[in-house]
């Protein structure tokens, strides 16, 4: 960081060692679940006494777990399909607003990311209870869309701030309509960030625990909710196998995003 200064080799090596240790601290706990999920033991042990796929089989045979996986998948896909278009549109619209108005709208849109999730959870619970909608997929999707919108909005705002809007004006002045301009000029140039925001929106929904805990039940209970309940009751390696699957999904999302980003840059 201080490149005008000479530095001793020992200090340099010490710094690298500390930095790598910190990377280990950040990354390792996420990966420890992988070997545990292949454990043959009934309990959580590390290292596992033997290897087997029994906990994956158990997951696959259990109605509770497969139903939860299905609910999570539906919620995630619906959340992505709704939040990406409206979040993108809002990011685009917000950039055209003037000073104060822009700050106000942007603040309102990122609000769900700052407000404690528990408040959204119980507030939504009370509201849905009033209309008899607790435990429905639509209630969950509305809440998840609200939580995904700030993510999409931030990513797309960054993308649009790099976009040269004179291209849009050029297309319009040459006679293209608004929709045609969007389809042919704007969207193709922000498709990378749109893919990134879609993945992030999906992962946001897939990982969300607190809201799902309060407003879903029965066949609409999501994976994180079932996992959280299981963690409180008994700890068996099924959770490790579910974690591994979730981790794989999140990791592939990160890889896709990084490759997309390095492809452009």
């Amino acid at each position, binding site marked *: *960081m*201080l*490149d*005008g*200064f000479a530095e001793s080799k020992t200090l340099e090596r010490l710094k690298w060692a500390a*930095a790598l240790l*910190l990377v280990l601290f*950040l*990354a390792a*706990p*996420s990966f*420890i*679940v992988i070997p*545990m999920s292949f454990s043959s033991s009934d309990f*959580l*042990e*590390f290292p596992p006494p033997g290897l087997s796929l029994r906990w994956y089989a158990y997951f696959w045979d259990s109605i509770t777990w497969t139903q939860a996986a299905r609910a999570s998948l539906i919620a995630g896909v619906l959340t992505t399909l709704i939040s990406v278009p409206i*979040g993108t*549109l*809002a990011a685009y*619209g*917000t950039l*055209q*607003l003037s000073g104060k*108005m822009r700050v106000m*709208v942007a603040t309102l*849109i990122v*609000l*769900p990311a*700052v*407000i*404690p*999730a*528990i*408040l*959204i959870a*119980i*507030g939504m619970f*009370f*509201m849905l209870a009033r209309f008899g909608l607790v435990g429905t997929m639509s209630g969950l999707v509305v809440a998840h869309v*609200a939580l995904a*919108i700030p993510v999409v909005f931030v990513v797309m705002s960054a993308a649009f701030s790099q976009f040269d*809007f004179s291209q*849009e*004006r050029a297309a*319009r002045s040459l006679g293209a309509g608004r929709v045609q301009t969007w389809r042919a000029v704007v969207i193709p140039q922000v498709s990378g960030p749109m893919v990134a925001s879609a993945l992030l929106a999906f*992962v946001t929904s897939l*990982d969300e625990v*607190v809201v799902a805990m*309060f407003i879903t039940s029965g066949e609409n209970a999501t994976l*994180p909710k079932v*996992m*959280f309940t299981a*963690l409180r009751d008994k700890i068996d390696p099924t959770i490790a196998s579910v*974690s591994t699957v*979730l*981790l794989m999904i999140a*990791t592939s999302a*990160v890889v896709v995003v*990084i490759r997309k980003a390095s492809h452009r840059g």
Partner: protein
Amino acid sequence: MADMALAGNVRLEGLNRRGLARDATYERLLALGFTLPCLLVVAIAVAIPCGWLFYLSIFGADGSLSFENYQRIIDGASYARIFMTTFQVSLLTVLACVVIGVPFAAFISGLEQRKAVWFLAAILLPFWTSLLVRAYSWLVLLQRGGIVNSTLMSLGIIDEPLQLAFNHFATILGMTHIMLPIFILPVLGAMRAIDRNIIRASASLGATRSFTFRTVFLPLASPGIAAGAILVFVMSLGFYVTPAILGGGNVTVISMRIARSLSNFSNWGAASALGVLMLVFTGTVFLLGYALQRFIARKAI
């Protein structure tokens, strides 16, 4: 966009003026219209529920208008302790993030781009890994028969397994692990924006390395550090999953108390009042932090 191009330098005159002004207004309204779907969702999922909480909180158990829910919180010593615990855990998480994150970010900011990307990827990976998965991993690592304890015992450092999980230590460790990426990103941004020539100037004028770090580099990075710290603090106040799992019942934060009032006692009024207080608490901390950050930013320039 059309309005910006037209309203900028060109003086609008004659017959066209009114038409163009109308177009400009139309464009502006349309831009606002584009943000409406998002604003609507935020209203349904955040504004109305929070308003509902406020509404429910001012009714007593018998359904009449009263402040008994708030009265009970103010009177009860257990509530004061829960607020203190939440504050303490959040503050320690911020401290841990600053102590670990600032040197780490300073290190990365000095690397060349090619190497820095790998560190960034390592920082971002846990950022996108489920909170539950990470809490669960820490539980496995820290439990009595876990790797940390068995390693320490086989090295002969300890004789008995240490109680590492289900306490404040585990909670703060888990929360720091989650918040560190969120802290590092703005700090790294601020450090990267520092003009390297200022550092070189300090070196050429004979300042020592640590003197330059303390009096030039850190002050210039301080607005970013403050912004990261405030973000971490405010987000930590709302944590639920990590203290619930890693605290193992020995750490009760506000979120957990709200959840318990609701699921165990079905006491909507008490849960709402606590929720409203939490919102006010978080909002106040955020505003104070924001004012502090502005102050630091002004001094840094």
